[in-house]
């Protein structure tokens, strides 16, 4: 009798532990999604500003062409190519901004200021997202989670390599 009770108790606490782990993992997946949504939103805004800069008089035809195509590529990119496309956009923006800072009129100056503020936010958003991804990856390595397939069908989040220092 006693042993049955003990076994039942152990089984129960083990089940509780599994449910606890599942909740924990669920929360982490949620964090990965929201932090990605945040980062994605910021990157979209950056692409919009890049297009605005490209269409202003501040950009010469050649850099306007470069910037427009980079911005469109970043917007249209599939998730696998996203990182490369965003890095290309960073590069294109950096070229123009470093070059043209001195002869921008007031409206363009404000665009460039928006861009700088946005870049600072993007850096933080990248850090937050990468952190969520790496904690999730770490928890998903736990043996209990792998044997009992607690992650379900959720794909393992991948780390995106953003070259944030390009800006």
């Amino acid at each position: 009798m006693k042993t049955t009770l003990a076994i039942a108790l152990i089984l129960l606490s083990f089940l509780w532990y599994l449910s606890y782990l599942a909740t924990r993992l669920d929360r982490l997946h949620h964090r990965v999604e929201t932090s990605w949504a945040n980062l994605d939103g910021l990157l979209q805004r950056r692409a919009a500003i890049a297009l605005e800069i490209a269409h202003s008089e501040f950009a010469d035809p050649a850099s306007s062409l470069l910037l427009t195509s980079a911005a469109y590529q970043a917007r249209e990119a599939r998730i696998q190519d996203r990182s490369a496309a965003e890095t290309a956009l960073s590069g294109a923006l950096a070229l123009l901004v470093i070059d043209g800072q001195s002869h921008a009129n007031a409206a363009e100056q404000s665009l460039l200021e928006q861009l700088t503020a946005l870049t600072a936010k993007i850096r933080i958003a990248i850090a937050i997202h990468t952190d969520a991804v790496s904690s999730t990856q770490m928890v998903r390595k736990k043996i209990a989670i792998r044997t009992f397939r607690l992650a379900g069908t959720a794909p393992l989040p991948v780390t995106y390599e953003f070259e944030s220092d390009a800006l």
Partner: protein
Amino acid sequence: MAILRSATLMVVKKLKIGLVCPYGWDTPGGVQNHVRDLAEFLLSAGHDVSVLAPAMGEAKLPAYVVNAGKPISIPYNGAVARVLFGPIAFARVRHWIAEGDFDLLHLHEPAIPSISLLACWAADGPMVGTFHAAAKHQKVIYAIGPILEPAIEKLSARIAVSEAARLTLTNHLDTDAVVIPNGIYAKRYANGVRQEKWTGNTIGFIGRFEEPRKGLQVLVDALPMIARFAPDVKVLIAGPGDSEDVKKFIDPQLLHRFEFLGRISEEDKADFMSSLAIYVAPNTGGESFGIILAEALAGGACVVASDIPAFVSLLGGGEFGALFASGDSNDLARVVIDLLRDEKKRMQLSRVGKAHAQIFDWDVVAEQIFSIYEMAMVGGDRIKLASGTRSWNRFLSRDEG
């Protein structure tokens, strides 16, 4: 995609923000000051703010503070910390979360055993954590790491107040943080008036001088050497404490060079900083940010500080103030003497220091903190009690619905 974009822009509305302060509200301390200033800044920006903090009594609490109970004193990280935990405190924290209907929680020091950690356990939703301490007791952290990890990973975003605090996090808890410094009201210190009585070859010190880690002893030991080169040097010490106790340890021949000013007001502090020849911070450790140095820089003082990690990073590795080897009075004397002889260098340091101090102004710091809030809230969730979101509960409610 358009929906996501509007979601990040939308958050200009009034927010309900809950701040949790782990230490007793009515005892002086850096974290308490930080939480108070942040709460008042957010209130003045039009947000709805509630601060949960332990307190000895209800009497002197501001309207926005909710008392979580009487703090208990425990030894922690080389000092006595007044914290609060236990089943009753946990019930109060849960009650505060349930009643508050918050958009976001901002937990201060969630890695120490107090109500911030309890709130992190109890709540679910957008949470931001700020880590103030730079712990050096590595073994302890390794031991408690696995306990903390599940709680800490619930935070949507983490803030460290200094590079030293961030390193503690990355090394021991395997998680990264955004560095946002502590805030000061830089404008309050910017317009200090030079007071004749504090000018000349004066060395200033502010702090609870009785605490060994504040390092007054290092300055006292350096004074004989400094006095040999600058016979008219004076040491002005401000801060709460019993000066008689300290005077016993000072060479009687040099006693007349020390002046104890007691606790001084914020306005006096500004005057003090702009009048001094040199402000010295000889702390030997236990400091993770060094708010007093930020204030000294904002007041236009020429700063000399020990080379503990927090001070090195605050002073830009020596760019905005001179550094000496921590605990080494000979080195302190050398640096001070060099500066007392070289007025041009002093002027130059105080000028660049004052300009640098603007990055610690609340206007700048609060905006950075607020942009972290926005990022944490992107999912559009609100704060709920964690028990309401356990997976089985959700299964049940899904079946019923």
